[in-house]
C-alpha cells in the first residue's frame, strides 16, 4: 500500500534540493503553455493501474501492441490531437495550423519555448526528424502506411524554428487527424541510433530513463521486468490549468502488469489499483455489486466503436485446394442467404447474455456512439425467423422432414464458425448463433481456435467457412477503415486480395469510399459515407452483431475523471487527474 499523501509532502520538501527533481517547473517567459479548462486540482499522489500484459517497448515508432501504446501515449505528445471527449481535433504541440485551399498543404505553427522531459528544447527540427523516422522504409513502422497519401509519402519541410509544412500528394479528408498519436521524438537523443541503423533497438524497456525523453505528461522513472513500470511527472510539461499550475497534478503513474482481465478486476476489487478500463460486462456486474463499501464508482459510457461481426469466407479459393469449402461458397455468395442469417440472429439475446445488457445491437459498421458518422437512416432488420425462411425459400432452399435445411441439390446446409479462444464474449456469441441458426435448420459447428491460428486461417490459408471477429475501436473517422471496405484493401476480410471488385456493390462501395476520402466538406462526406454504410448493410458482407459498452471504474476521490468512448478511455486526460483529499482513502491504509 502506498501513501500518496505523505509522499507528496516529502517530494515538495526536497523539490529544491534534488537536481533531477520532477517537481513542476514554474512557467517561463515566452513559454507557450496550453491552458486547460478543467477543475483546478491538487498536486501529489500516485495513480496505480493494471495492464493485462506487459508493454514490450517504449519505442513509439515500432510499438504495435496495446499495452506499449498505452504507456507510450503518456510519455509522448502529438502535434494535433483528437480530443477523446469531443471526438474533434484540437491543437497540441502545434499552436495552430492552416490548410491550403486544395487541401494538400498543411502549415503547422509550433508552440514556442517548449521543452522535452529532459529539459532540452523542442522545435521544428525534432518534428522533421520524427517524420523522417516514421517514413523511413527501413524502420518498418506500422504507422508509415498512415502517412502515405495517394501512394506517396507526405513531404515534410521546416520553414523556420517553429513552423513546418506538410505536403500531401492529393487532397485527403480530415488529414489533420492523422497527426493524432504520432509521437514527436527528441532528435538530440535519437539521431545517433537512427543514423547507425539501430532505431528499433533504441527506446526499449531496458534503456536507462536518462536516455528517454518525450513531450508527454510523464517520464520514465523505473521499470521492473514482469512487475511494473513507474512513470513520474514531466516537470516541463506544456499544459497548465487556469491558475497557471503546470500539469500534471499526479506525482507518479504506475502500470502494474497483471496477466489477464480477471487479474485486473481482482486488483481493482482489492483496492490495489485506482482505475480500471474496459471491464468485461460480467466483471462490471460483479465489481459494481460492492460499490457502496469500496469507495469506487463505475461508469457505463455506452457503446464502443468496435463492431462484432460474422463473416463468411468469400475468398477466391481456386488456387487453394479447398474444394469442400468452395462448394459451400455457393450458399455464402447468395445475398439472400446472408440476409437470412442476419434475420435469424437474435441480437437482443447477444446483448443480454454476452454483454449482460451493457452493449448495443448493430446492423451496420458504425456504432451509435460515433457522434459524427452514424447513419440515422440505416434500417434495423428485426429478428424474424419467418423472414429468414422466406429469404431462404426464394433462394431455392428447402427443409427435410427432420427440419434440416437443404439447398437446391439436396445438400444439407452445414458449416463451421471459427472464433478466437482469447475472447470469451465472441465464444459465447458463437454458441448463441449456433443455436439461432439451428432453428433455421442449419447445422453449425463452433470451432474455437487460438488467436494466431485463427488469423492464419483468415489471412493466409483461407481454410475456414465463417468466422466471428471484431474490428474498429480506433478513431471515429471513416478514413482509418478504408482498407476494410476497399475491395483491394488489406483488411477486406470476406474477400482478400481482389484485383478488382468482384461484385457491383463492392465496386460502388469502392467509389463512395474513394470519393469521401478526398471530399473536404463534412456534409458531403457524411452523405457519401451514409450511402456506403447503407450498401454494406443491405449486402451483408459482414453480419453485424453487437458492440460492447465501454465500462470503466475508478476510485471515487479521483478528480477530473472523465472517461471517454475513444481509446484511451480513462487516461486521455491523465494530466488533469488528481486525488481529492480527505475522501475515500484506500482500503487497508492506515490513517
Amino acid at each position, binding site marked *: 500500500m502506498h501513501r500518496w499523501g505523505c509522499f507528496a509532502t516529502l517530494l515538495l520538501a526536497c523539490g529544491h534540493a534534488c537536481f533531477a527533481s520532477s517537481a513542476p517547473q514554474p512557467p517561463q517567459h515566452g513559454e507557450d503553455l496550453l491552458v486547460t479548462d478543467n477543475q483546478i486540482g491538487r498536486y501529489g499522489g500516485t495513480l496505480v493501474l493494471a495492464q493485462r500484459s*506487459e508493454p514490450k*517497448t517504449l519505442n513509439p515508432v515500432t510499438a504495435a501492441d496495446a499495452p506499449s501504446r498505452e504507456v507510450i501515449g503518456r510519455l509522448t505528445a502529438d502535434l494535433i490531437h483528437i480530443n477523446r471527449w469531443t471526438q474533434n481535433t484540437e491543437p497540441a504541440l502545434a499552436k495552430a495550423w492552416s490548410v491550403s485551399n486544395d487541401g494538400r498543404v498543411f502549415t503547422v505553427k509550433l508552440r514556442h519555448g517548449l521543452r522535452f522531459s529532459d529539459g532540452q528544447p523542442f522545435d521544428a527540427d525534432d518534428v522533421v526528424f520524427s517524420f523522417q523516422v516514421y517514413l523511413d522504409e527501413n524502420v518498418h513502422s506500422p504507422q508509415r502506411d498512415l502517412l502515405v497519401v495517394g501512394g506517396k509519402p507526405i513531404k515534410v519541410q521546416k520553414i523556420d524554428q517553429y513552423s513546418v509544412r506538410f505536403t500531401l500528394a492529393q487532397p485527403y479528408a480530415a488529414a489533420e487527424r492523422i497527426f493524432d498519436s504520432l509521437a514527436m521524438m527528441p532528435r538530440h537523443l535519437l539521431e545517433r541510433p537512427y543514423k547507425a541503423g539501430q532505431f528499433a533497438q533504441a527506446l526499449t524497456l531496458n534503456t536507462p530513463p536518462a536516455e528517454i525523453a518525450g513531450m508527454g505528461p510523464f517520464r520514465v522513472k523505473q521499470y521492473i521486468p514482469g512487475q511494473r513500470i513507474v512513470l513520474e511527472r514531466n516537470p516541463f510539461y506544456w499544459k497548465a490549468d487556469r491558475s497557471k499550475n503546470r500539469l500534471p497534478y499526479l506525482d507518479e503513474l504506475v502500470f502494474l502488469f*497483471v496477466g489477464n482481465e480477471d487479474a485486473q478486476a481482482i486488483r481493482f476489487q482489492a483496492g490495489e489499483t485506482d482505475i480500471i478500463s474496459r471491464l468485461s460486462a460480467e466483471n462490471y456486474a460483479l465489481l459494481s455489486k460492492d460499490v457502496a463499501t469500496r469507495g469506487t464508482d463505475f461508469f457505463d459510457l455506452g457503446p464502443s466503436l468496435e463492431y462484432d461481426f460474422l463473416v463468411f469466407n468469400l475468398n477466391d479459393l481456386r488456387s487453394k485446394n479447398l474444394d469442400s469449402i468452395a462448394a459451400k461458397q455457393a450458399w455464402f455468395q447468395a445475398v439472400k442467404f446472408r440476409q437470412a442469417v442476419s434475420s435469424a440472429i437474435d441480437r437482443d439475446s447477444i446483448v443480454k447474455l454476452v454483454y449482460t445488457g451493457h452493449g448495443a445491437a448493430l446492423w451496420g459498421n458504425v456504432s451509435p456512439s460515433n457522434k459524427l458518422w452514424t447513419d440515422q437512416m440505416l434500417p434495423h432488420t428485426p429478428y424474424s425467423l419467418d423472414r429468414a425462411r422466406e429469404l431462404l425459400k426464394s433462394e431455392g432452399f428447402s427443409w427435410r422432414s427432420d427440419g434440416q435445411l437443404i439447398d437446391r441439390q439436396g445438400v444439407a446446409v452445414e458449416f463451421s464458425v471459427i472464433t478466437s479462444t482469447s475472447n470469451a464474449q465472441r465464444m459465447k456469441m458463437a454458441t448463441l448463433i449456433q443455436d439461432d441458426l439451428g432453428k433455421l435448420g442449419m447445422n453449425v459447428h463452433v470451432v474455437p481456435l487460438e488467436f494466431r491460428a485463427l488469423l492464419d486461417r483468415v489471412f493466409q490459408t483461407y481454410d475456414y467457412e465463417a468466422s466471428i471477429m471484431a474490428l474498429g475501436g480506433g478513431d471515429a473517422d471513416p478514413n482509418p477503415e478504408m482498407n476494410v471496405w476497399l475491395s483491394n484493401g488489406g483488411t477486406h476480410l470476406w474477400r482478400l486480395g481482389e484485383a478488382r471488385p468482384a461484385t457491383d456493390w463492392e465496386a460502388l462501395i469502392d467509389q463512395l469510399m474513394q470519393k469521401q476520402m478526398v471530399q473536404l466538406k463534412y456534409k458531403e462526406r457524411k452523405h457519401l459515407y451514409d450511402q456506403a454504410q447503407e450498401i454494406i448493410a443491405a449486402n451483408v458482407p459482414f453480419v453485424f452483431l453487437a458492440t460492447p459498452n465501454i465500462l470503466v471504474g475508478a476510485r471515487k476521490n479521483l478528480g477530473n475523471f472523465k472517461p471517454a468512448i475513444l481509446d484511451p478511455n480513462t487516461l486521455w486526460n491523465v494530466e488533469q487527474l488528481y486525488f481529492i483529499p480527505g475522501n475515500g482513502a484506500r482500503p487497508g491504509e492506515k490513517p
Partner: protein
Amino acid sequence: MKYLERRVIHGLLLLIGVSILCFALSAAAPGNFFDEMKLNPQISPSTVAGLRARYGFDQPLVWRYGHWVESVLRGEWGYSFAYNCPVRSLLLVRARNTLILTGLATLLAWLIAVPLGVWTANRRGRWDDRLSMASTSLLLSVPELVIALVLLYWAVRIHTLPVGGMASVDFGGLGVQAKLFDLALHLVVPVTTLVLASLPLLVRHIRASMIEVLQAPFVQAARAHGIGGARLLFRYALPAAANPLSSLLGLSVGALLSGSLLVEVITGWPGLGPLLLDAALARDIYVVVGAVMASTLFMIFGGILADILLVAVDPRVRLGKV
C-alpha cells in the same frame, strides 16, 4: 568419468534436443508474430511482409536454427521481435523469480507431503487416511487455475493479503525486513496454489512407496524388536523408500515448473510463466525457446539435486553398491 561431468554432458545433450524440437514445433504451429498487424486496417500487407523478411521468416528452418545457435554462443539467446532486444535480458530476472516461487513451493510441498504420506501409509484405511485421500482427490479434480482464483477471491475478501504481483508499489522504499515481509505476503497465494496442486501426486506416491516398505521383513523385524511410532517410520522405513522418492523429486520439479506457468499468469507473479505464455501466443519464438531452455536447466538441476539427496540419505548409493 566423474559423475557430475556425465550429468553435465547429459544436460547439454538434453538442451540441444529441447532446442531443436522447440524450433520444429514452433515452426509447425500456425501463424507468426507479425500476423496480428494484418488485422489493423492502417497497416498495409507489404509492411508486414517487409518485417517478416527482416527477421528471417522467409528463410528455411535450418538457417534460422543456425542463426539462433550463433546468437546463443554470443550470449544473446536469440532476439525478441516484441521486445526488440536480446532474449537473455528478458530471461534473467524472470528466471530468478520463477526459481524463488517454484523452489519455495517444492520445498513446502515436500515438507508437507512426506510426513503426510508416511503417516497415512501407516494409518492405511483409517479415518485420517481416508480424509487425506478424499481431500487429495478434491485437489486433483480442481484445475490449478481455479485453485488460484479461489485463493485470490479469498484474499480479496480478507483484505490483508495482496492479490497478486511480487512486491508492493512502495517496495523500493522499504527496509530489508519490511521487504522480506512484503515478499512473503505476496508469495502466500501463488505458493499455496502450487503446493495444493502438487500435493495429491506427492502424497499418493509417498504413501504407496511407504506401504511397500512397511511390509518389508526388516521393518516387521524392527517392529518385533519394539521399535515403533515415528522412529520406526522416519528412521527405518523412510530411508528405505528414498530411492523411488528421489526420482519423484526430479519429476515434481518438472511438474511444478509447468504448473507454475498458468499460476504465475493468474497471480501476476513476474516469472517465466507470463513471458512464456505471452510469447507462445504471440509466436515470439526465440523468447519461447529461451524460456523453455531456462526451465529445462531448472529440471536438470532438480535432477542433480535429487541425486545428491539420494546419496546423502541412502548409504548404499554412497558406497557405490547399487
